[in-house]
């Protein structure tokens, strides 16, 4: 502990809140550095499926076991982020119905509860699903809200004394002899540079882990696997619906908040920051969606986005075998390259994020002079203390008794004026896009057509920004939004987009704002 006092921070270079949260809970003085906003990376861009393990039951039994264990834990500790939708595996006319037997056997062997139900019962529960399905199985999949999860971890970490620095880039890691002793970082907003001294640095930068490792002259081979997802305007399904076959592209369709999401693809990209959405991949997802839900191509697609999976590829020995499976890898660079005080945790999936953090912080404990027990399997995240699972109707239930008490700024997502104003103050931000990730502002069918003018006005009125700043964040938001909108623009969503053009350009004339 003397060491910790004189070198006050245990910085976790880049991106992974869960590790920060875990370390903070164990009483370490902890700082997290993220180059952009929290939830702007891979976790915030995942499809939202809290796996039961069914997807891996045949192909990757150890991953399946991890998933069901973590699924059970998160329903308790991250209850506010989990909607208990249930999961359904179906054999469509394109899938071999006999795979269902392997699936059931795999689930039995890995402890994933699975139950075959009659096709008629499955179609009663999910009337839009292809009536040609031949088998159907229930599993305890659930919908996991990635943004709430990230904010829950952040608040928990901060409540336990951690410091979180979003929009801070790691410029360099400081190596003293054979030890990493800190990081040199720069604020991406203010531009100031400073040093953080630390006893242990955990590299949890996901697909960017190789770039961070290089700063300490270490090698981590992570390939970036880009996955594409499309959010549809309605919950076309009530449960997480999976194709009952070996995992492939576009075979998951799940309800997430007010939308539903189809995913995903898997394309290697040389640079995790270059994620161009290709038309072929959009078509692939729409065609696969059509197999699960006939008429999918006529349904309204809201938004497309890509996340980048870290796929760990390494022939060198991984540090620890107890918790490490094919799905994630913990690397101790003292045994790999002789660099102490530096750990990399990579690979993995969102469902097992807590387990990854536990493994990484356990390893950090050893370097910090002895194990402190991990409590993240028992202690609820901030916001989940009541252990009440999230329900889609929560925001409506809060509004219904007092429908006229105040303005609703975003009708799609039922965001109130006071909710928006409080968030602006708490977050101390000038960016509408940051607010979007906190509140889901502008995430509904109109994609900000109405609420963004209102939010810009409120941001300005509250004194957070001057008129130039308000105009700039409004224009930035329109540009950023377009990235996700234009790849899937067709049908009724093009109609909506054109109405938005009329609002922003025809009525408000945003192109001629004084910036």
């Amino acid at each position, binding site marked *: 502990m003397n060491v910790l006092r004189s070198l006050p921070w245990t910085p976790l270079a880049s991106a992974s809140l869960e590790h920060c949260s875990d370390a903070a809970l164990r009483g370490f003085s902890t700082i997290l550095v993220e180059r952009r906003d929290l939830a702007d990376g891979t976790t915030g861009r995942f499809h939202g499926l809290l796996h039961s393990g069914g997807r891996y039951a045949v192909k990757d039994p150890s991953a399946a076991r991890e998933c069901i264990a973590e699924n059970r834990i998160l329903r308790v500790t991250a209850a506010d982020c989990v909607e208990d939708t249930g999961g359904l595996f179906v054999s469509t006319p394109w899938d071999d119905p006999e795979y269902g037997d392997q699936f059931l056997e795999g689930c039995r062997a890995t402890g994933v509860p699975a139950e075959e139900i009659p096709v008629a019962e499955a179609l009663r529960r999910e009337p839009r699903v292809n009536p040609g399905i031949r088998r159907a199985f229930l599993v305890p999949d659930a919908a996991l809200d990635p943004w709430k999860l990230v904010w829950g971890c952040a608040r928990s970490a901060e409540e336990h004394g951690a410091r979180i620095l979003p929009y801070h880039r790691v410029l360099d890691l400081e190596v003293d002899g054979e030890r990493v002793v800190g990081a040199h970082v720069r604020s991406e907003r203010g531009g100031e540079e400073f040093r953080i001294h630390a006893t242990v640095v955990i590299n949890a930068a996901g697909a960017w882990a190789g770039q961070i490792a290089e700063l300490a002259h270490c090698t981590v081979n992570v390939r970036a696997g880009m996955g594409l997802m499309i959010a549809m305007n309605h919950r076309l399904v009530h449960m997480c619906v999976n194709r009952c076959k070996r995992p492939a592209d576009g075979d998951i369709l799940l309800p997430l908040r007010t939308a539903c999401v189809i995913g995903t693809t898997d394309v290697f990209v040389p640079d995790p920051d270059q994620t161009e959405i290709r038309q072929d991949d959009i078509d692939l997802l729409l065609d696969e969606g059509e197999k699960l839900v006939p008429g999918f191509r006529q349904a309204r697609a809201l938004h497309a986005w890509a996340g980048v999976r870290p796929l760990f590829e390494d022939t060198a020995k991984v540090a620890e075998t107890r918790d490490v499976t094919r799905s994630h890898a913990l690397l101790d660079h003292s045994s790999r390259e002789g660099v102490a005080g530096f750990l990399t945790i990579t690979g993995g999936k969102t469902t097992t994020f807590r387990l990854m953090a536990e493994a990484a912080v356990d390893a950090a404990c050893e370097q910090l002079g002895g194990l402190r027990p991990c409590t993240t399997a028992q202690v609820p995240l901030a916001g989940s203390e009541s252990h009440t699972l999230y329900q889609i109707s929560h925001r409506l239930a809060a509004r219904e008794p007092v429908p006229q008490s105040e*303005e609703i700024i975003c009708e799609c997502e039922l965001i109130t004026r006071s909710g928006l104003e409080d968030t602006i103050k708490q977050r101390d931000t000038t960016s509408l896009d940051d607010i979007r990730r906190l509140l889901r502002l502008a995430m509904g069918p109109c994609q900000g057509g109405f609420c963004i003018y*209102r939010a810009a006005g409120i941001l300005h*009125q509250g004194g957070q920004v001057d*008129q130039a700043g308000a105009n700039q964040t409004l224009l930035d938001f329109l540009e950023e939004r*377009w990235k996700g909108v234009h790849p899937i623009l*067709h049908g009724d969503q093009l109609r909506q987009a054109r109405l938005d053009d*009329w609002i922003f350009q*025809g*009525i408000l004339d945003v192109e001629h704002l*004084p910036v």
Partner: protein
Amino acid sequence: MSYDTVVVGAGLAGLTAALRLSERGQRVLVVARGVGATHLAPATVDVLGYLGDTQVASPAASVPVLISSSPNHPYAHVPAEQLETSLEWFCTKTAALGYAGNLDENLLLPTALGVPKPSALAPRSMSGGDLRAGGRFVFVGLKGFKDFHPTLIADNLNHARLPNPIEARALELVPPSSRRGDLSGRVIAGGFDTEDLIDWLAGALEDRVDPDERIGVPAVLGLRSGDATWQELEKRLQRKVFEVATLPPSVPGIRLSDVLSSALRTAGARIVLGVRAVGARAKGGRIEAVEVVNATGTVSYPVSSVVLASGGFASGGLELDSFGATRETVFGLPLIGLPNTDRVRFAPHYFDAQPLATAGVATDDQLRPVDASGSPVYENLHAAGAILGGATPWKEKSGTGTSVATGYAAAEAILTPAPTPVSEAVR
């Protein structure tokens, strides 16, 4: 029941064409899926606000420039004198709203973001916001009305480039208890129609505004009573008052739609909303009947002429499917302005020139949709408004001007057919 002309669409272009035809003695049926985009738009008549990046001071001088650089622009098919005639006609038909302005000089009216926007005409309840002369302005917000942000408007106007200096400030009023909560413009406007909100507003402003300040309020001064409320407010306050258009639904847009619809009914036309025109029965290059789907099935209306004013993508007149194919949704007409690829890809930056921005039907000089060879698809089908290709009206600020001019010109083409017969197009 037979009609001389069926008009498809009840927006500004459709209502203009229908009213012009009706007042000249035609039996007219308007069929539309809904009330039309007039309900969504500010009621200003924007003829031309921008040529590229250059702000247009005089539409009369700049429209010919636009036509010479964009020969497919809808204005290119409106006879030169008809642009002005159509606006004069429009002003007489909407006398209840008192349109001010002309084709020679654009007004510069503040938007709800505080951007000076050029418009040729505006109802007199809005035209007092003209910024060109400069001076002092106060913008008035209503607590609980989320669609109007006077502080941002005033700050932006104080930073705007204008011909004469202005000084703008913001003021927020707390409405009486009956008008609190989550207010829409329509709800507040209803208050001016049915309650004495004007007493409250006049009283609240009286001591808080200097004698030389012009008062900008959100465009919510009543639906039926809008113009009267505005006049009364100016009289009581002895100051210039003006409405500022904001997000849809647009109260002044609804007023305009109501004035035109009611003139149309008075002139003897029939308006049927909630139905969908789905095609034509044609023979020898002429439409003999328009097929309309209503709640009970498909009805066939025999006609002499048809005006297609179904709007662009925003109104459902055009559609892009998920495979990248664009179609005109009523008659399946040929389109211009489509990208040369088999798949539409939008430009990656929002403010870039976007494919499909100028998509729509091309016409001859009688506003008849033409095919690739330039021949009319049907000799008795005319098109007006946002269905016409060749323009980017939300960027040019030319949407309502195009609707009035082409709606009027389409009606004139029907009333006074061109002397030379067109070659027989067999389809």
